[in-house]
């Protein structure tokens, strides 16, 4: 199994990263701020104006360390793409699966089932801890809707119906989302999902976390030799990592939403961690990003019991485990893809 290596996040504007022997050296304003042996790092994520030396990039490409460039607000910009490696037979199997409507449908169903089940678990868990009877009612209602949708999945015959079921459930989920916020209610009110740009603090936080999760899913898929652009549930579009989006669906609620709620409910994140832009956009500012990333990195080191492997797995490795299971299914070693079920 892959070791969960640390990810270095660099958000100080104007910093410069370079390779020195087998270490990464980080200069901020001409002074070395850190020097880290490369073997501790699984990847780099840099925000905004951060420079990387060509030789560092070459080395990361050779070793298969991921490098991701994000805008200062965490919007995905680019990824380092190393020479295509991995298993061409696996990628052929991936494409063959997409060419077979029944298999695609079945896979999409499993993915949506995973997503709905995990969203339901998050709703029910929030319902148990709800601050008021009305919140609890709202959450239980949404959870019941999810349960129904899951039961209805096997009857769906077309991919679009599966997508529709997912969309309906997502609507109900986000309609109930506000009831999961227990503290700082005045400062963190969720009125509906808004992106590009996020229009409130909760949305800004969710968007940021989804961006991080998406990168991790794409890296995990590439790690097992799958093509992150060839997905099943999401429609293909040039430049869109649809398989990463597919994989992300079942992980959103337990790994991102639940985490966002914890940050808010425990008061780890505060209104001051956000900045409002003219025009209504809200984004995390530098201190906010630092708080979120630090907590997120800690979260990745915590362990959850994987329901299939029946052993504790660091949260950060869950996308990798799922990518591997998906590869096994596509190759025909596993009859069905087993989504990750969160408890």
């Amino acid at each position, binding site marked *: 199994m892959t070791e969960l290596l640390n990810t270095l996040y660099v958000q100080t504007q104007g910093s410069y990263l370079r390779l020195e022997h087998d270490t990464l050296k980080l200069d901020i304003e001409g002074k070395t701020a850190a020097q880290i042996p490369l*073997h501790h790092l699984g990847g780099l994520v840099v925000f905004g104006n951060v420079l990387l030396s060509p030789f560092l990039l070459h080395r990361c490409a050779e070793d298969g360390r991921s490098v991701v460039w994000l805008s200062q607000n965490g919007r995905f910009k680019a990824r380092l793409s190393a020479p295509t490696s991995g298993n061409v037979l696996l990628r052929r199997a991936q494409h063959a699966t997409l060419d077979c409507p029944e298999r695609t449908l079945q896979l999409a169903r499993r993915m949506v089932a995973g997503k709905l089940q995990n969203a339901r678990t998050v709703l029910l868990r929030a319902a148990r801890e709800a601050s008021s009877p009305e919140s609890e009612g709202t959450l239980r209602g949404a959870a019941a809707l999810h349960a129904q949708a899951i039961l209805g999945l096997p009857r769906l015959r077309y991919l679009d119906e599966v997508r529709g079921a997912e969309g309906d459930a997502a609507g109900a989920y986000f309609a109930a989302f506000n009831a999961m916020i227990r503290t700082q209610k005045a400062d963190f009110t969720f009125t509906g999902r808004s992106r590009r740009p996020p229009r409130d603090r909760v949305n800004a936080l969710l968007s940021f976390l989804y961006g991080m999760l998406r990168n991790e899913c794409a890296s995990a898929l590439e790690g097992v030799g799958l093509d992150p652009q060839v997905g099943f549930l999401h429609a293909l579009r040039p430049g869109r990592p649809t398989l990463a989006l597919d994989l992300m669906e079942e992980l959103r609620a337990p790994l991102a939403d639940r985490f966002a709620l914890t940050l808010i409910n425990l008061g780890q994140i505060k209104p001051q961690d956000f900045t409002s832009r003219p025009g209504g956009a809200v984004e995390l500012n530098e201190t906010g990003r630092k708080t979120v990333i630090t907590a997120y990195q800690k979260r990745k080191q915590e362990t959850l019991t994987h329901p299939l492997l029946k052993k504790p797995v660091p949260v950060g490795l869950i996308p990798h485990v799922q990518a591997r299971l998906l590869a096994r299914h596509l190759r025909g070693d596993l009859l069905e893809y087993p989504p990750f079920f969160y408890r």
Partner: protein
Amino acid sequence: MNVLVTYDVNTETQAGRRRLHKVAKTCKNFGQRVQYSVFECRVNAAQYEDLVAKLKRIINPKSDSLRVYKLRGEREEFLETFGLDRHVDFDEPLVL
């Protein structure tokens, strides 16, 4: 595995000073300097062999001394520090 690498390299000659520099450089690739000639490294078994082999190739066994201590477990369990400590835990979130 956490290891502690310490060394004494005889620097009376030009070649000795070069060896000292090389030893430090090699250690830096595997860990971090915690005192002038003391490095703490967290390595796996393969990296450990690599590190030791590289260091053995650099030093002059007649005039230099190299000691590698393996910690039997977590660093926190086996280490007490006093005074200045610039150690950075590379497993902690790295946000800069």
